[in-house]
């Protein structure tokens, strides 16, 4: 497939613009998405191209942004609401998980909620505790919602299109650190990444590294370093935190019999906990070593650069974890 090398930011912008051109029902709303051009520039030029009806600047009202997205979606539109950072989505947790995710079930299928909540996620810019989170597992806790977290520009493009076209609500996490990173983006306006399907980023025989979003990058870096030391890593990119492609993890584990889970988020009640639990329950006979996890330290994040980075996962920590079990 023909592809162009583009940063993830441009891949997201291209996907969103094409979906707005394709379907009149798709519109964007959020803080500074219009005249300001979007805090992260995903909606750059949209206000001029689509106008105020379809590119809707909102007050700083996360409960109303997400709640109105739920209502508009119930009524037949395809809202794409932006949370400037995923931290602000905590204010709208009730609208997203208690309404958006449950309305279809509570009313036994009378309504569907085809909305996308895009949220810029992550840490690492000395943003301090209240602005430094990768809390996708919180949202993934709730049935009724899908949670997307792409690691590459190509996936960002295809997954956002999938999310917008799907009939279900999607929390779409975009890693701020990955916005500028380039990668191939397919030249196909109907390029879709199926909901709940992960991808093998690197094949290997000795150990499975399971990751999402930035964790994929650290895992690939670690795999390159470990290759020089004779350890052959397989890297699994989950892409969707819900549904979770456990079959892909199990297929890999049956081959390698060892696993390190790499997550950008906090360790308790996490992505890592979930995958480790699945492996011990379903892959017990294949286990040659304990499952290890590399997560952020169990702390609020500090401001000071030196200790902030100390609290966070990176490729070196992945290498160290792998060496403990191979």
């Amino acid at each position, binding site marked *: 497939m023909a592809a162009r090398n583009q940063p993830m930011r441009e891949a997201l912008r291209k996907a969103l613009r094409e979906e707005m051109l394709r379907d009149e029902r798709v*519109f964007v709303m959020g803080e500074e998405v219009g005249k300001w051009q979007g805090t992260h520039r995903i909606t750059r030029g949209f206000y001029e191209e689509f106008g105020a009806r379809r590119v809707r600047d909102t007050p700083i009202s996360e409960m109303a942004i997400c*709640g109105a997205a739920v*209502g508009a979606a119930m009524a037949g539109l395809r809202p794409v609401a932006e949370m400037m950072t995923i931290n602000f989505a905590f204010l709208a947790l009730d609208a997203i998980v208690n309404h958006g995710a449950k309305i279809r079930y*509570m009313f036994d299928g009378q*309504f569907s909620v085809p909305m996308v909540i895009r949220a810029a996620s992550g840490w690492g810019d000395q943003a301090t505790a209240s602005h430094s989170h990768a809390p996708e597992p919180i949202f993934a806790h709730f049935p009724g919602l899908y949670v997307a977290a792409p690691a590459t520009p190509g996936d960002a493009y295809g997954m956002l299109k999938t999310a917008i076209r799907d009939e279900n609500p999607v929390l779409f996490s975009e890693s701020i650190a990955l916005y500028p990173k380039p990668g191939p983006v397919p030249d196909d306006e109907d390029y879709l990444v199926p909901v709940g399907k992960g991808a093998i980023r690197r094949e290997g025989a000795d150990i499975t590294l399971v990751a999402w979003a930035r964790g994929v990058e650290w895992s690939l870096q670690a795999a390159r370093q470990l290759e020089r030391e004779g350890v052959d890593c397989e890297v699994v990119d989950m892409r969707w935190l819900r549904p979770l492609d456990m079959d892909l993890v199990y297929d890999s584990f049956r081959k390698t019999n060892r696993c390190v889970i790499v997550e950008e988020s906090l360790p308790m009640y996490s992505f890592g906990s979930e995958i480790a639990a699945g492996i011990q329950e379903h892959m017990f006979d294949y286990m040659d070593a304990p499952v290890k996890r590399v997560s952020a330290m169990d702390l609020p994040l500090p401001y000071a650069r030196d200790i902030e980075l100390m609290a966070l996962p990176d490729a070196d920590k992945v290498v160290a974890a792998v060496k403990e079990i191979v």
Partner: protein
Amino acid sequence: MDNANGAALPDRDTLLDWYRQMVLIREFEETCYELYEEKRITGVYLHLYSGQEAVGVGALAAIEPRDHAITSYRDHGVALARGVDPGPLMAEMMGKRSGVSGGKGGSMHLASREHNFWGGFAIVGGHLPLAAGIALEAQYSGRDDVVLCLVGDGSTNNGYFHEALNLSAVWQLPVVWLIENNLYGMGTRIEEASGQPLLHKRAVAYGMRDGGRIDGQDVVAVNCALNEAVAHARSEGPVLLEALTYRYRGHGVSDRQYSERLRDELEEWKAERDPITRLGACLEEAHPDSRPAMSALEQAARDQVLAAVKFAEESPAPDAADLVRNVYVE
């Protein structure tokens, strides 16, 4: 002829139809109460509309089928006033598959898509931004539908109220925000919960039309005010108004101290301001031959609710396949 609040009286058939709806709601709610006491309705949450019938009936009469209604968890009366069949509503109370929400929503989550009744919602204030979103769809699509959003007085002090009303004003959405002020948010009286207990005055803060405070026990006055509010929402933008009303059965049926705690106040509201008694008196004064018709409607309501109970009790419960259905659109 005008009624006590100065509103012009509609014709006899309209008044009788409102009477029919109000006695049906009262009968339905009092039957729910008995069924709960008898443990034939077993859910822990059951918030009854007895006493507030004039608000729902008068307000819903002001909107058309193409318009939209949405409310809080005190939703039985609103569903009935929107024309939803009592049978599937009662079946929902009993957790049956034939319930409007398949037995999965219960008392607080009644809805009927075909009636443009978007539901009862159980988180205080949670449905307010949904109302804004439903109104946005109408505006976005170039239709002039309005959304009637019933709001309990209790929800006026959480963030949803502020954010949703402000957004509706900024975007000039076609929403009628109707506060049903029954004086208490659970057990806390409105004066103890609101710096400004004249709740309709909040409209000023959002730069939207203030529809004032109306007598919520007078169905004619409610309907008259709502007609104006709906016309404003349809052509200009959002409006906020407040109907003063009273609940007869406490916050929920589990509030067993209610009738004791507020005995004098409750008896006064029942004796002097009951909305059904008042509409009956109004009908008899305007149309002295109405008594037999009213009696027939009362009997019809009893029969209809009995039939609804029978339908509900004879309906099957949902099964294991229903349990896992409709989490997602497959």
